[in-house]
């Protein structure tokens, strides 16, 4: 499905990623773990076409999408739910969602897509006409997930979805991620919270200083002494 090989990226002279390999198979949740600044977000942004790839390739469904424009990558179905509050604050909640479907705007089916997102997040239906900037942090996170679904993704990438959310909201969000996955969508999950990410994933990669240092099935990673020590608090 998604295959990243030999990926390198840099900000100016500072190397951010060095020879990163990772794969997401057709029906998996795969997580990418690592400390702050390890290069997790950069990896996603390289795949999304926001950060230029210096060396290496990104293949999606067998097609080379390295360094394509972000809009071309979204149109192919690789959609990112970014970290933080990356919404359009002064547009209504509904307009935020509609713009999520920008690449699908010529299709008549956006109303169905919107109805599906509203079923998944009833809160967004209640708040459809208020400015997105007035939503709470958790609601904004939901809005970004809904917005990504409006693009009819074939692979969904989450960047730190748990960041800044209460434990209750994190549980709700991961329940929704699991539900989206069960509906048949492969997921690449970037997280600092290794415990919850490994529990949700089938396979995991550990990124340290821009390089993949360890990878394997999620249950084996969760049992690995080094992972337990560095990421699971003992």
């Amino acid at each position: 499905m998604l295959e990243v090989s030999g990926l390198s990226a840099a900000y100016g002279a500072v190397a951010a990623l060095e020879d990163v390999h990772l794969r997401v198979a057709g029906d998996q949740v795969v997580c990418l773990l690592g400390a702050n600044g390890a290069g997790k977000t950069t990896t996603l942004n390289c795949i999304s076409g926001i950060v230029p790839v210096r060396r290496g390739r990104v293949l999606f469904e067998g097609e080379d999408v390295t360094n394509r424009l972000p809009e071309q990558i979204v149109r192919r179905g690789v959609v990112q739910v970014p970290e933080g509050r990356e919404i359009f604050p002064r547009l209504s909640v509904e307009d935020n969602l509609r713009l999520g479907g920008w690449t699908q705007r010529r299709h008549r089916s956006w109303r169905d897509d919107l109805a599906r997102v509203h079923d998944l997040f009833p809160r967004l239906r209640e708040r459809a006409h208020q400015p997105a900037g007035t939503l709470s942090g958790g609601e904004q996170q939901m809005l970004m997930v809904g917005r990504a679904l409006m693009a009819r993704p074939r692979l969904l990438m989450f960047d730190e979805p748990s960041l800044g959310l209460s434990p209750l909201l994190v549980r709700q969000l991961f329940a929704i991620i699991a539900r989206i996955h069960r509906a048949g969508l492969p997921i690449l999950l970037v997280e600092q919270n290794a415990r919850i990410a490994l529990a949700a994933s089938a396979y995991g990669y550990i990124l340290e200083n821009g390089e993949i240092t360890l990878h394997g099935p999620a249950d084996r990673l969760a049992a690995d002494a080094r992972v337990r020590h560095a990421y699971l608090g003992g």
Partner: protein
Amino acid sequence: MLMLKLLQAAASGVVTGCIYAMIALSVVIIYKATEIVNFAGGELVMVGAWLGLLLVGYFGLPRPVMLLAVPVVLFVLGAAFDRLALGRIARRRPSRRLEHATLVVATIGLSNLLKGAVRGIPYTQEVRRLPPLIGGAPIFVGDVVLERQDLAIVALAAVVMLALWAFFRYTLPGKALRATSQNARAAALVGIPVAGMRMSVWGLAASLSGLAGVMLAPKLLLTPDMGDVVTLAFAAAIIGGFTSLPGCVVGGAILGIMQNLVGTFIAPQAIAVTPFFVIMLVLLLRPQGLFGDTVGVRRV
């Protein structure tokens, strides 16, 4: 008599105010979309005016054709400038702050380029004036005299500004433009072509300036330096808060009316200082302008 003078000054003020508002809108939509202050806004007005005169006075085209052709040509000009100059500079991306300063300087370059280009055309060597958009006897409302052409200017400006408002408020491409100006990164991540949006904004802004030029041309002598009128548009934009589209319209109207009142009741020589006086007054009472966001200092 006093009342009549007052009404007459207000009526004339609304006409020039409409033109200031259109130029201010042109400057502000670029600023909102790209954070660039477009110093070539006035020269786009000037090019629009000369182009209108050329099409009507030299090629003898009917006026409605000219009114359609000018915004189309200016759209292409604005979009091309973004694509060929600003796009290239932005792609080199030395650093964000340096880039921003370079882009602003590039608009000053465009301003000089356009002035030079218009001066180079032999037709522009003589001082000319665009014949009125509509002829005919003035209309009296009570004792207030309204030129037909002034009514046409106000009507055209109203239609254009309403269309612009509806475009940003109700259409998906309009919302995509607003989204891009609110959060360019998020816009890219949902698949909105950010570079294309920027180019469209430049095209749209240049169209607005060009149309303003056509409206201004019958009231003013045409010279390659007539772009200086942009100072008044900046004033209108600042009064309105510089990030608010309704603010441009209100700011333009206030400025136009104030200028005419000052000209009528104080002294014609005082008209030139009026904008600065109004700006100082507004900024003293409301530093963010009438409709602006909260005040922040930005280093350029």
